[in-house]
């Protein structure tokens, strides 16, 4: 049994090469172990002190968010809020202030839960995951990374170092909306992210929608291409809602029936597209959308 506190990325990669599992905020790993989901790994390497992983970098062509960036950072970081607003929307909803202060983007992604809140935003923003070992770096598309509930295609010894997204035109906007039964310490019953890029005439140039907690992994809604050229109106939103509901394969559990989830995923998808389009038009929709409008809005 060992616990290594890595002080450099190389340290961490060396420990991983020796068979240690990374622990960032520990909010999935430790809580899961206590609940009896999986015992704590024998050997752990703490990566929460690695400055290299805690940076957000923006270039002309991409935005790169370190795996160690916490939700508390994501929800207020100006670059994230500007360029990847949906991620900020999602991060702002995670757990409680305590959870957000230690929980990380990398942990959320690598934990691989279909209910992860940053997953759908990353998908609609076209993110790829950067995975590193002591000797190699590779880039993996998210639909290849997530292979099932709690499962990823990452190999033992691979550390996720960053999530990387291509830069998008100024007329783009993104948003994430989640169904919440209460205003904090909630877990996604369903959620939806959308990213919209508008053409100069205000019509849709591109639209991506992804769904949380309605399939074994984050689910991207397919077949939206024919909506390019449409304006964002009620008809379009209804069509998105219908497709989202149709493609979701939700389960019935204590949180909701499949019937309710199917309907709600349409409502969430519709709201996400609506908010993303507003942001693409430059209209202000505060982060997170869940606190900006509707039942969850501040009084």
């Amino acid at each position, binding site marked *: 049994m060992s616990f290594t506190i890595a002080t450099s990325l190389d340290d961490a990669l060396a420990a991983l090469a020796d068979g240690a599992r990374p622990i960032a905020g520990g909010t999935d790993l430790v809580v899961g172990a206590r609940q009896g989901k999986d015992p704590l790994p024998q050997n752990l390497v703490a990566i929460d002190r690695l400055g290299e992983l805690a940076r957000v970098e923006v270039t002309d062509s991409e935005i790169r968010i370190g795996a160690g960036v916490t939700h508390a950072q994501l929800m207020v970081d100006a670059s994230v809020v500007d360029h990847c607003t949906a991620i900020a929307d999602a991060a702002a909803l995670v757990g409680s202030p305590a959870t957000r202060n230690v929980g990380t983007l990398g942990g959320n992604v690598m934990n691989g839960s279909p209910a992860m809140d940053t997953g759908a935003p990353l998908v609609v923003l076209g993110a790829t995951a950067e995975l590193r070992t002591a000797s190699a770096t590779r880039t993996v598309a998210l639909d290849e990374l997530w292979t099932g509930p709690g499962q990823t295609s990452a190999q033992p010894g691979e550390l996720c170092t960053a999530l990387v997204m291509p830069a998008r035109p100024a007329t783009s906007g993104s948003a994430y909306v989640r*169904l*919440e*039964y*209460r*205003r*904090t*310490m909630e*877990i996604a019953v369903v959620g939806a992210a959308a990213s919209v890029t508008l053409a100069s005439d205000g019509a849709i140039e591109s639209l991506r929608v992804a769904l949380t907690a309605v399939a074994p992994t984050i689910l991207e809604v397919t077949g939206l291409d024919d909506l390019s050229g449409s304006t964002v109106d009620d008809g379009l939103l209804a069509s998105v809602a219908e497709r989202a509901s149709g493609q979701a394969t939700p389960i019935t559990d*204590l*949180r*909701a*029936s499949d019937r*309710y989830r199917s*309907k*709600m995923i349409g*409502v969430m998808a519709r709201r996400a597209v609506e908010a993303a389009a507003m942001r693409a038009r430059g209209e202000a929709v505060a982060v997170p959308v869940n606190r900006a409008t*509707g*039942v*969850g809005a501040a*009084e």
Partner: protein
Amino acid sequence: MTEAMVPAPSEDVPAFVRADGPDKVTGSGRYTADITLTGMLAAKFRYAGVSHARITRLDVEPARAIPGVFAVITADDVPDVEFSYGIADRRLFAKDVVRFEGEVLAAVAALTPELAQQAADAIIFEYDELQVVTDLEAALADSSPLVHDDLDAYTITGDTPHGGNVATHSSITVGDAGAARESADVVVSSRYVADASHAVPIEPRAVVAQWEGDKVTVYTSTQVPFDARNGVCETLELPASRVRVIVPHLGGGFGGKCGFHYEAHIAALSRAAGRPVKLVFSRWEEFVAPDRRREGMIIDVTTSMAADGTIVAREADILVDNGAYIADASFFAQAAAMHVAGPYRIPNVRIDSKLIYTNHQPSGSVRAPTAPQGCWASELHTDELAAAVGLDPLEFRRRNIVRTGDVGPSGQTYEEIGLEQCLELASTSAGWGRDLPDDEALGVGIGWWPSFGAPAGAYMKMHGDGSAQIITGANECGTGSVMTLRMLAADEIGIDPSAIELIYQDTAVAPVGPGASGSQTLFNHGRAVEGAARQIADQLRDLAADHLEANADDIVLADGKASVAGSPAIAVDISELAATAASGELLLGKGNAEIRDWPTLSGSSCLGEQGFSSFLAPQFFCHVSRVRVDRDTGVARVLEVHTAHDSGTILNPMAAHGQIEGGVMMGVGQALTEGTRHGDDARQLNPALLEYKLQTIADAPSIHTQFVEIFTPNAGPKGSKGLAEAPNVPTAASVGNAIAAVIGKPVRRLPMTAERVWEAVEGLDQPDSSTDATTYTGGAQ
């Protein structure tokens, strides 16, 4: 009207009010789980894990064989005693049959909790499964399996009708409700179904037991130390003199820690192990094992009215889920009947209420047992009545509520009561009738709750330096009300309350009392403390009379001085009198709360009398909630709750506001998110905080409270009544009526979860309910 506004708690709160506050906030306070004694072992229970089964084998030898295990005990190792209030239907450890999943089969004491768990798991338990009873209606069928084969084999106190799966049956009958319905103008029938819910104190319960010779000291997180002590005495057949129960700081209770729970198990285990033993519950155990959770209910109610909205009759059938054992629930059937009747003038009443045995976790007193559900049903029904006759809900209530001098639905005549004032104050505060966004509405709920007379004593002594001690059987479960006891005593003897120390939560030193149960700390313990303090005051007056050469009747005790009435300059410090007494006849007082009888009833006949058909010093209240509803998702959020309470005189505003705020939050949880779900096997599906959703501080509405401080005959100290349970009662009702006002129809299942609200909006049949459509019938049927 004699209502008075009480200042908000921020103004002038004396620091002594919460003497335990700093301990609790800074972490220096010690709870039961913090206790560590030399040689102490850890306890774990082996639970049935099955809801109904005949035990065919229980072999503890594999557990005993594990090194580090000091004792394993079962029903064979304790006296064969059947106990409980009303129906003595259970034992400490299961014998022959298990009737719910959380029933204790065996207890293990070992060096560590992990080892104790390993040993508990090693116990071999084999059984033949029996058919479970989970459905309240099916439980009544002749063909239903029985939870208890023969109730009459148990010792039963009282004369409540019972039999089959019916633990108790109570009814209220006044006039002829059937005939009144026949000739009524409008009749409305509704069905409401409430899920079970939990008290969920933040501190899971813990017990530590230590024997010295033939005496045992039990530290336990109970609200009712004397009940706990009596339970140990009864089940382990020990005299009261050999059992001492001490309650360290208590981390909440909400009724869930009333009654007697695991004190005897751990005392017996400690005796068998020859060492002190500590039990600390996990959250799962806290959900599954104790015989205290809020009962599920099915309520069918029919009300008949004249065309102008005057209620002429109410008929109701109520089924209350008792769970596997009676715990303290024997009065629940009658209590539920009173809350479904509601504080209305109803000349003809026929309510039948049955407490049904099932293979669920036993129900027991959780903050105002049966009342929030009964009130929710009655009040949602009342809004349906108002709609049926085209009246505003407030106006409908004005026409039908009980007022001073009126006769209520069980035949009780109410003396001075403030329900009318509560209705007006809360609705005015909420701005009833104002314009709101179309996804918001106000909803109203009114209700009542009794005070209870119970034996309670108190001692008091004054030290030579003029400070004093109260020794009371009261218990601090977070209400702060025990702190008010110091104010009462201080008032009698004329010293500052901060000079009075409270000795409490220890059965070896305090006289008997009901502890923190039934909103009675002030009502009963308070009267006992007043009595004890008066004796000291009398002694002080005698001493002062000697000293000042005045008549004892003329001595005024105030501000630390004894002075002659009308001549404040002729005075002596109370501390000086105390010093005199310290070298002579000591200053000692004792008080007894005289038992108050229930008010009498006229014109009603009630079956299965459980002392709940009339209300002693009743509290009345009205809550008005503003709720926003997302029609697309069914998510509801409570934005404001305006409350008005007739709890008599408010002695401690800060504590009173705290009770209202806590009660409102608990009520909002019950309204929206807190419900226990059961599988077909009668086991709980969501015994954890991830799936049993409490409200959080982020969900808290703004809460606006006013008190209607009218004089109540038969009240507690200085005209006070209880307040701890009341604010929990009408909250779900007011939230439910607000939701109904937004979506145009009531949600008939409690909690009114987002999915259930959505189903109501969409007009979908609710898959987990069997709700009937409401029937409006114009004219006689």
